[in-house]
């Protein structure tokens, strides 16, 4: 036993070293990897100390600011792999370099889901009174673990998202747009990012096809676009949960072959640009924000009239109404396909906005509505604001 003094030295060197680094390291405010603000050192307050809040906050602060976070996470994933685990930190280490978020039955909330269906049904009725029948659509996009099932580890089972979607379909048979079937049909293609929880632009392209078929609006053919692939290595949110070595993703941007000009108005004039894409976001970690600047409360896109209509062979004037999209981040990369069919496209994220939607529809002469959510989110976060607008 006496023979191991160097072990003791090594152990305490690690402990002392990490202690010192974590004491001296300047605090980081935002983690681009994890897309969140990190906890900062809590202030001493007697009331917080007595209630135990201070100690809790301090522990979160230490963990958030822990030195070399990413390296530790890689080490952990490597250890899990050695143990033969195909899953780490809620992520399947799937075939072909895919990192796929795992969803389980705990990820859905039965009450919220049921209420959301009822809410959507009431909302649809209300909206259709204004826009007329057949003009309101709902689209649920399944996450990768329920589509790319061939790539998952053997026997993997998770939340049954098709069951969730079929329940929505039953409740809203005339409004439901079936995106899952077309995605499943194309599951061999790159319809989901390998390192991010979103679908790719190609996935959204298929979603656009499903939507077009359901609305009767003729989708633009593939020849009407050319696909850009900016030189940018994308490592998404799922990657930051496991930090394993996988090839980076590429973000594709579909540009109409004919030049069309847009006016993109963020949050009622807060910022106005001429592009659907925020290319500067490709210099940051979260490249998915290139689409419409990430999550914004309200975006209004106006297509310049005349110019586009002149485009030979493209039916841009087919509806020429105004579209309202109520959505989460999955919609961001599909909206560039939709905008060309309308004069104005209004994009609303109810997480950051609490509008009186029927009034909004009237005021802005909305003719078409699309509700688009990722299935799991639709099943676990309340859409209370859909009908209780202020």
């Amino acid at each position: 036993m006496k023979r191991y003094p160097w072990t003791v030295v090594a152990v305490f060197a690690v402990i002392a070293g990490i202690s010192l680094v974590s004491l001296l390291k300047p605090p980081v405010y935002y983690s681009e990897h994890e897309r969140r603000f990190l906890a900062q050192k809590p202030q001493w307050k007697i009331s917080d100390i007595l209630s135990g809040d201070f100690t809790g906050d301090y522990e979160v602060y230490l963990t958030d600011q822990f030195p070399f976070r990413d390296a530790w996470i890689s080490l952990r994933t490597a250890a899990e792999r050695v143990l033969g685990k195909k899953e780490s930190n809620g992520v399947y280490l799937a075939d072909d370099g895919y990192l796929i978020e795992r969803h389980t039955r705990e990820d859905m909330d039965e009450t919220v889901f049921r209420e959301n269906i009822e809410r959507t049904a009431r909302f649809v009725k209300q909206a259709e009174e204004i826009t007329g029948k057949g003009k309101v659509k709902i689209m649920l996009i399944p996450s990768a673990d329920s589509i790319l099932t061939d790539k998952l580890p053997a026997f993997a089972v998770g939340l049954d998202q098709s069951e969730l979607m079929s329940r929505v379909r039953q409740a809203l048979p005339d409004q439901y747009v079936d995106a899952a079937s077309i995605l499943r049909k194309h599951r061999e293609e790159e319809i989901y990012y390998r390192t991010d929880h979103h679908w790719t632009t190609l996935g959204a392209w298929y979603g656009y096809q499903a939507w077009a078929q359901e609305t009767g609006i003729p989708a633009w053919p593939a020849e009407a676009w050319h696909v850009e692939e900016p030189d940018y290595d994308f490592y998404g949110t799922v990657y930051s949960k496991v930090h394993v070595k996988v090839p980076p993703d590429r973000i594709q941007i579909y540009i109409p072959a004919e030049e069309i000009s847009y006016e993109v108005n963020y949050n009622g004039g807060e910022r106005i640009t001429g592009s659907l894409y925020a290319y500067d976001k490709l210099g940051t970690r979260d490249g998915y924000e290139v689409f419409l600047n990430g999550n914004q409360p309200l975006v209004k896109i106006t297509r310049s009239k005349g110019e586009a209509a002149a485009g030979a062979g493209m039916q841009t004037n087919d509806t020429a109404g105004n579209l309202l999209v109520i959505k989460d981040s999955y919609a961001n990369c599909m909206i560039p396909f939709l905008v060309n069919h309308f004069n104005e496209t209004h994009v609303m994220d109810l997480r950051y906005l609490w509008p009186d939607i029927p009034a909004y529809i009237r005021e802005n002469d909305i003719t078409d509505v699309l509700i688009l959510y990722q299935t799991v989110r639709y099943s676990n976060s309340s859409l209370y604001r859909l009908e209780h607008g202020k």
Partner: protein
Amino acid sequence: MVFSSFVFLFRFLPAVLLVYFLVPRIYKNLALFLASLIFYAWGEPLYVGLMIFSTVTDYIHGNLVDSFLNQNRRLAAKCAVASSVIINVLLLGIFKYSDLLIQGINLAAHTQIPLPELPLPVGISFYTFQTMSYTIDIYRREARPARNIIDFGAFVALFPQLVAGPIVRYETTDLQLRKREINREKIVRGTLRLVTGLGKKVLLANNIGVLWQTVAAIPMDEMTLLKAWLGIAAFAFQIYFDFSGYSDMAIGLGYLFGFVYPENFRYPYMADSITDFWRRWHITLGTWFKEYVYFPLGGSRKGKGVQIRNLLIVWGLTGIWHGASLNFLIWGLYFAVLLINEKLWLLKALEKCRAAVRHLYALFFIMIGWVIFAFDHFQDGIRYLSALFGTSGLPAADRESLYLLSEYGLLLILLALGCTSLPFRRLRNLASGCCGTAAGDVQSDAVHNGIRCIGIYCIVCIGTVGILLLSIAYLVNASYNPFLYFRF
């Protein structure tokens, strides 16, 4: 504060070690006492008052008992001991069992007394047991009163064993509180033990705990035979590695401060009877009940009838000590029934069986015990048991069971190995060979031996540091790092 947290590993521990080694000898107990108060107050800022109250009361009682005995007033001394025991039991009763008692009263008398719903002070079951042992040991003349309240406070509050044991009886630490030596041997042992314990808790218990958590969340109408067995095996591994890992850390930290604590676990799943299991599981609790309840009640010396009664009392208490809920009482009595049977006839019958049969018998009843332990609601426990016995009417396995098996299979095998003494024995055999005097007669043997020594040395060194680094890696992103003894 818990040992498996960054606050402890990278703030508290280095600071306390530094202070402890810098202060002069006479202040070491004071330093430990103050550090322990901070340690406790970190998680329980208000209840630290309760612990100080308990410390002061029992210190005074101890001195009273001693002076009464010196004056030969045995009755007065007896009263003082009784008073100390009553106060401690009352503390436990109020803070731990009041909800359960009132629920019982409400049920029996159809009353509507509101439940106080006091949060349970962490470690109260441990430190009240320790302070009780103090006055009782003095009364029995097995220990002298502490020199001063600082020494006694250091005994009660000592942070290594404060929240989850081992339960140290005063008699065994009395001398160490007065004079203890810190030497190289203790520091090496302590460090290795501390890291081993951390690894057991963070790498083994937490990871297999995720499997148990997953299974526990599965609705009962999907609980196949395989899932149920995977789940309860996961629970058995989790509670053992969590608890014994925590004890290892406590013992290791004790060494670093010069204390030698009693062992708390001795490969319990290698037991070949339930009697044997309880000699290996949470040993210090068993010893406490034996010393202060079972023997005073007459133990086994007053005939079979009294012995059976005593076993029922001790195991009922042991059960309810683990948490204020009926299932713990049932769990304790379940073991009492098994133990009584073993004492009366079963052990003799088992002796005739092969070792494998004896081990299987013990493991089977231990696992069934964990089902009772794990489910607060008896109904859920019963349904789980029916899944375990394949009487739930479901197929033996489904996709999900196979997925869980493939995800956790290797870890389960490692855990099963880790429950035996095999890995440790192997390492010790290898290590002992290289320093043996018998070897090295021939020159080439010595060289060969030397190489092997360096090999072992590297294994231990790299292994220890590796466990530490891996544990940190798992803690950085820990979604699951529970503290299992909050109900004890």
